[in-house]
Each structure stands twice: as C-alpha cells, then as structure tokens.
C-alpha cells in the first residue's frame, strides 16, 4: 500500500494506502466519489473514461493511479466555473450531442484535449502537413475516433465540437 499525492479539479488530495492495482479511473470513482468519468469497456477501446492529466487527454482505465504522483487531473466535474458551463459542455447541450449520456463525459473531456492538440498544430493521419489544422467534420471524426457512442449520436457530437472550433477561429 502506497501513498499518493494528486490534484483533482484543483483540489489537492493526500491519499494513504492506495492499492497498486487501482487504476486512475477506479481511484476517481470509488475513492474520490467522482463518478462522472465512466467505465465502459475498461480496455481503452471506448473512451468513456477519458480525463485530462496535466491538460492532456488519456484513458483513465489503463492508467495505474500510483503513476500519477504529483499530477493534476481534470474530470467532467471540474469543467464548469460556478454555474457557467465549459464552452464544449454548452455546445453539447446546444447541439444535442448525446442520447443516453453515458459516453458524454468522456466525449467532452476528449474534445477539450483534442481542441488543444489542434491549437498546438498536432497533425492527424488524414490531415495535410501544412502546420495549420482545419477542423472540418472528417478531421474531428478522425481525432475523436477513440470515443465511441453506442447511441450513434456522432452527427451531433461532430456538430457540437465543430461549433466550438469555429467560435475559437473567429475570436
């Protein structure tokens, strides 16, 4: 049993007796009772567990908690500021980017990470290597392929993310 110091949504946690087998996802859900991050496949294939670690999106189900000593984690619970939704959250509401909602926290965290990657010029397999990233529907689908939606709400998910990307491009 090991100790773990980790910040989650801006709150520092000094945890004792963390079993080495605990994944980051289980730590968030079972220990810190932040059940927004979802367990779908538990194999890194569905993306429902996506959270941001030091600003980068990862699958929390494939990451052992103890490897995150000193890290800053952001989950779906940490995105809104008081009553104001994060722009990606607001866009999902506006464009009806979900049906059952189970994949939504992962979709939203993944989209935030993805938008940041695009902002920094991260290339994609289908994109041209021109430096500037144009987030059209095909690019969004490629970059979001690690997040599955069993309800098939993809059309509206893409629309929501595209709207945020457009807002950013115009501002």
């Amino acid at each position, binding site marked *: 049993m*090991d100790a773990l110091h980790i910040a989650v949504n801006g709150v520092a946690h000094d945890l004792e007796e963390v079993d*080495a*087998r605990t*994944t980051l996802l289980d730590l968030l859900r079972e220990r810190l009772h932040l059940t927004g991050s979802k367990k779908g496949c*538990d*194999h*890194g294939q569905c*993306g429902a567990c*996506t959270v941001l670690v030091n600003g*980068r*999106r*990862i*699958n929390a189900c*494939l*990451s*052992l908690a*103890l*490897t995150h*000593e000193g890290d800053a984690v952001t989950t779906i619970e940490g995105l809104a500021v008081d009553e104001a939704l994060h722009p990606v959250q607001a866009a999902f509401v506006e464009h009806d980017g979900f049906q059952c909602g189970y994949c939504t926290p992962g979709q939203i965290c*993944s989209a935030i*990470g*993805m938008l940041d*990657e695009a902002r*920094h*010029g*991260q*290339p*994609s*397999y289908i994109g041209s*290597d021109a430096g500037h990233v144009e987030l059209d529907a095909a690019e969004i*689908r*490629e*970059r*979001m*392929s*690690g*997040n599955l939606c069993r309800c098939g709400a993809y059309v509206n998910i893409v629309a929501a993310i595209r709207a945020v990307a457009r807002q950013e491009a115009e501002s």
Partner: protein
Amino acid sequence: MNPFAYERAGDAAQAVAAMVADPGAMFLGGGTNLVDHMRLGVATPERLIDVTRLPFDRVEETPDGGVRIGANVRNSDLAAHPLIRAHYPALSQALLSGASGQLRNMATTAGNLLQRTRCVYFQNVDTPCNKRRPGSGCSAVGGYTRYHAILGASEHCIAVHPSDMAVAMVALDATVVVLGPSDERHIPLVDFHRLPGDEPDRDTVLRHGELITAVALPALPLAAHSLYRKVRDRRSFAFALVSVAAALQVRDGAVADVRIAFGGVAHKPWRARRAEETLRGQPATPEQFARAADAELSSAQPQPGNAFKVKMLRNTLVATLQELAGVAA
C-alpha cells in the same frame, strides 16, 4: 488483477538492477497494453518498475545528422515533432495511424516496440496459445485468421506484431539502444523482434533486465520522401490488415534507392529486402513495382482466412510506390 509491488525507478541503472534482482518484475511504460494484460491475466508480474519518469523524453538531432528518440517520448509527441515530420514523414504517419488520440498521449516509444500481439487467442486466457503458455498449442491455426501472418510464421504461432510505428522504423534503418546490467548495446530494429519458430513466447531478443533507453534513426536523405499506408477494416482506431512503409529515391526514371517494410503480416515488422533488390537500378514503373511485390510475396504462406492479404499487400505496395514516384497506373 494479481497483487504486485510498484516502484518508481530513480535512474536507469537502478531500474536495471531492480529488474535483475527480481525475475518476476516487469518495466511499466505508458501501460496501455501491459495494464490491460494484467487485468486479463495474460501478464502476471509480481513487481512493476515504473520507468516513465526516467529522463528519456527528448527527440534530439545527433552529430551525424540522424535523430535520437528517447524511450519515453510519447507517440503523439513523436508524431508531431518537427524533425520527424520533416525528415521521416512515414514515421509520423505510422504513429498517427495507430490507436487513438488518448492512447497516443500515453504510449511510449519503447512500450510501442514491446507491445504484444492482439491475436484473440493470445489475449483469451481460456484458449491454448504457445505464445502465452508454451507447449499448449496454437488455437489460431485452423481458427479465425483474418488478422494473422502470411510471412515467416511457424506451425507453433501465426500471430502478427501489431505496431505501426515499428514498421516505419524498420524501413528507416532504426537501431534500438538498450542498457543492460553490464553494458549498453545497439540492436538493429530489424533484428530486435523475432520470428516465432518454436519459441513464440519470445517476441524480441531483449534479455530480462535490459532496458530500452532510445531508438536511433540514421541520417537517411531518402527518408524525407517516405510514406506509410495502412489498410484496415475501419477507417480509424483499428489494427492493420496490411501496411506498407516505404521510402523511394528516383533518378532519371530509375530507382536510385528504396526502403520497404510491411506491417500486419508477420510476427515482426517485415523488411522487404527482396522487393528492394528487385527495384534498385530498375525503371520506376508500376510494372516493376508489381514485380518487386511478387518477388517478396513469393514466399507467402497465407491461412485459409487471410489469403486475401497477399493480393491486398501487393496492391498496397504498388500504390505506395506509385504515389512516391509520382507515376500513374
């Protein structure tokens, strides 16, 4: 998951010493494959030595004009690195064709090399598998073989290596830098992964205790003109049915130099030397590209469920070389 001890390595020598001291220990990188295998019962380490905080996180130009990639560089960072995109575009493309955005943010360079086959029988502890339990038999032979090997397999194992990154690196003459208990050694990547033979449980030539610290790419001017083309059952986030990494230099209509490797078709990234030899000095034409593919694939031994891969790979190689040569069919 079986209980295990967890420790974070302070430096590379300490990591190697801790590994040597415990035959049941394994190194932990990004964990995207190992943690999954621990959950499935495919891997049951008694100790994990976390090496992700060792200072091997840089991509650096070397004095000879090559590039040294630290073992801990994440797949997404490597794919985006300006040196890789400018001088070894096939490697950037291969990385971006693999896994998902989240997984690429986690997966390390060394871990990518050491990931294990996605053969469904290997990953299911309830079925016999010579790779997982030596001597228990191969469930894939006579089974579901759509994703299995057509080159270099044995009666003991027909699994394929799943990496995209390693295919591009093999084509581009990469070397693996390995730190052991007594010395450092440099292993050409093409010799790093093994063919299955009668020891399919051994994926690589790495010995217990040896730690990958870097992958070195040589200065290779033709690599600036390279491509990675991947064919799969869905457009994104899927393993290759077949893939081709190639670099081509054409002078006066003839092939001056060429590098080719195949993915998704063998127990290791498959360097297509016979195809390369068939091309050097010959006209850069679709007919010659097809001859080169046929020369390499003459030794193919497909399974009933994957005979389509021979033609698919032939066509993929021809299309890739045509694109590189800028010639129409």
